């Protein structure tokens, strides 16, 4: 087990631009079952995105609405009639909260992943390229955080940021930043390892000979090559962001129900309902989490497999390929965190 030598397919440079985009190029390369998994993942993710964008139009009620023109909503009403998925103990409409929850989830994913990619990539590039004591300190710190249960890191960060109480924006930022701190070490490690590998490549040396500055080499030569594996980590981490957000919500670090809908928080409230046989308050928010994570993971897994020639299904029947001695480090990594 040395450097992660994940073979990344180099898209045909002469193909039109849109066909070289990560997901599109993967789709064209896939066959059979793998294409099926990728397509299912894309459909699930697409529906999630669509629901998040159209939430105000789709949701029958507001996420914190407790009454309409006909009076207050009944509490703990079984699914059916005016409330398709029933109501909670507090009188919220379950369907509406599930739908509005997509917006919260999407916001947290976007903020968390953008922040952690930015911080992780910058730190990884600088640390890997410059080396020295800065590199060593960063590696030790990243290793320490990485080895630690990510949920606990997120809990500590949530305490730091919001002290536990959260408004909409505060809650989303707290969740997103907590998740970011968990993710930075992962991006950092991958990018740093790639950077160290690329640093020894002839094209970097020739750039040095030509007299390019460090900044230029990092941004023009190394950055472009080191970030090829990012779409994969992105999808894996997006699904983890959802799970971490839900876990924080479940432990009571969620966003208050009056300021946004959050699935984990709803599940926390639903826990007490189960003993009396009330299933609809927990089932639907839970299914929403599974739906979203499943979609994102299917896309990420498919990309991972398609990047690895040994795991990729072949269009033509062919012999087994003799493989380099390193097996899907990314899979192990992404799942282990």
């Amino acid at each position: 087990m040395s450097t992660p030598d994940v073979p990344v397919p180099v898209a045909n440079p002469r193909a039109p631009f849109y066909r070289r985009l990560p997901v599109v190029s993967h789709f064209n390369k896939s066959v059979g079952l793998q294409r099926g998994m990728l397509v299912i993942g894309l459909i699930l993710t697409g529906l999630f995105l669509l629901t998040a964008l159209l939430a105000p139009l789709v949701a029958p009620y507001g996420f914190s609405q407790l009454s309409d023109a006909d009076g207050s909503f009944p509490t703990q009403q079984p699914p059916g009639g005016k409330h398709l998925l029933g109501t909670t103990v507090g009188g919220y409409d379950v369907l509406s909260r599930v739908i509005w929850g997509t917006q919260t989830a999407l916001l947290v994913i976007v903020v968390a992943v953008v922040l952690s990619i930015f911080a992780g990539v910058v730190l990884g590039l600088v640390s890997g390229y410059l080396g020295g004591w800065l590199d060593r300190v960063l590696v030790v710190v990243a290793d320490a955080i990485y080895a630690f249960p990510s949920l606990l890191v997120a809990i500590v960060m949530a305490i730091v940021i919001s002290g536990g109480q959260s408004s909409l924006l505060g809650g989303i930022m707290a969740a997103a930043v907590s998740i970011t701190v968990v993710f930075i070490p992962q991006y950092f490690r991958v990018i740093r390892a790639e950077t160290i590998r690329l640093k020894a490549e002839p094209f970097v040396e020739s750039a040095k000979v030509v007299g390019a500055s460090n900044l230029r080499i990092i941004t023009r030569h190394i950055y472009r090559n080191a970030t090829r594996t990012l779409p994969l980590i992105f999808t894996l981490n997006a699904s983890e962001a959802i799970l971490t957000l839900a876990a924080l919500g479940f432990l009571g670090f969620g966003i208050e129900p009056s300021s946004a809908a959050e699935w984990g928080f709803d599940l926390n409230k639903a826990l007490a309902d189960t003993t009396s046989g009330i299933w609809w308050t927990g089932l639907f928010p839970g299914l929403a989490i599974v739906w979203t994570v499943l979609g994102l993971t299917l896309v990420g897994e498919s990309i991972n497999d398609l990047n690895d020639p040994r795991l990729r299904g072949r269009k033509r029947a062919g012999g087994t390929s003799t493989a380099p001695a390193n097996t899907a480090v990314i899979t192990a990594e992404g799942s282990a965190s």
Partner: protein
Amino acid sequence: MTTLIESPPADADGLLPAKKKSSGGGLGQYILIRFLLIFPTIFILVTMVFFLMRITGDPITAAMGGRLPPEQLQERIHAAGYDRPLFTQYIEYLGQLATGNFGTTLSDNRKVTEMLTTYGSATLELSINALIVALLVGIPLGMLAAHRRDHLDAVLRIFAILCYATPVFFAGLLLKLTFSVWLGWLPVAGRAKTSSELALTSLQAPTGIYWLDALRSGNMAALGDVMAHAVLPAVALGLLTAGIFLRLVRTNVIGTLGRDYVEAGRSRGVSEFRLVTKHAYKPALIPIITVMGLQIAVMLGGAVLTEKTFEWKGLGFQLATYLTARDFVAVQGIVVLLAVIVAMTNFIVDIIAALIDPRVRY
């Protein structure tokens, strides 16, 4: 410190390329270096947790703010020493940790270390049970998936992804609804009935792991009761990890199945079953053990959620309770304690990996 950092740090899954050529150093040297590396890891985590938790203010205000008049609040802050310079407090805190003092909780005034002895065994029991479920489900299914690589493979992979995509608390909730509330087969929550709990805790020198205690005392009624309580939490937490093991075994066995020596075995007439379970599986074990080490951290995180779901009175359940009570001294204590446990288990796993594969050593 500097000498420690000179050597490549704990490289859990091999992302560090800086691998020194072994200068004749054997296993003993590796174990020593790896052991010494535990300390910077713990030190960094302790430092980070301490300063992060104090950025926002002192724990007393967080716990009691709004419930006490400001003068009394100030008095208590002063009495606890939280108004001194942060650095002085930090040094004092490190000194306390060095003597094994993890602090005293604010809300119910208990020692965090005492909590470990009371509740740690419950968490340990849950983790062991879950690990058994994960291994029993993940490894055979992973080998099967690697061997078949057809529709069954696809089904198994979807199963693995579903395991991973389902949060433990949702899985637990579904299991509870199905098997406890509707079918009535298994108990809803807790670790044992009150009667068996009493019988087990009154034993001489109890281990705190209930099924072990029940076995030792030969109390079969209690054993059955404990087992019934253990099934659902173990399955909920175990399935999460089982999916990861399945994927990992599948990927690695597929990798080794393509090697020449497997082909050679096949040409000598070794059965496919034996090829998968012996020839291809053994070399695939090393990455599995490394990831298993990382899984311990995931499991502890999952245990917090599982314990909360099933009211399993372990460290995680306590953590969730203290979080709700905003008792951040207790939270900090438990978090640091778990950090130490994780660092120790990672150390043990690395040693096991080194024993199996000599190439892992520095």
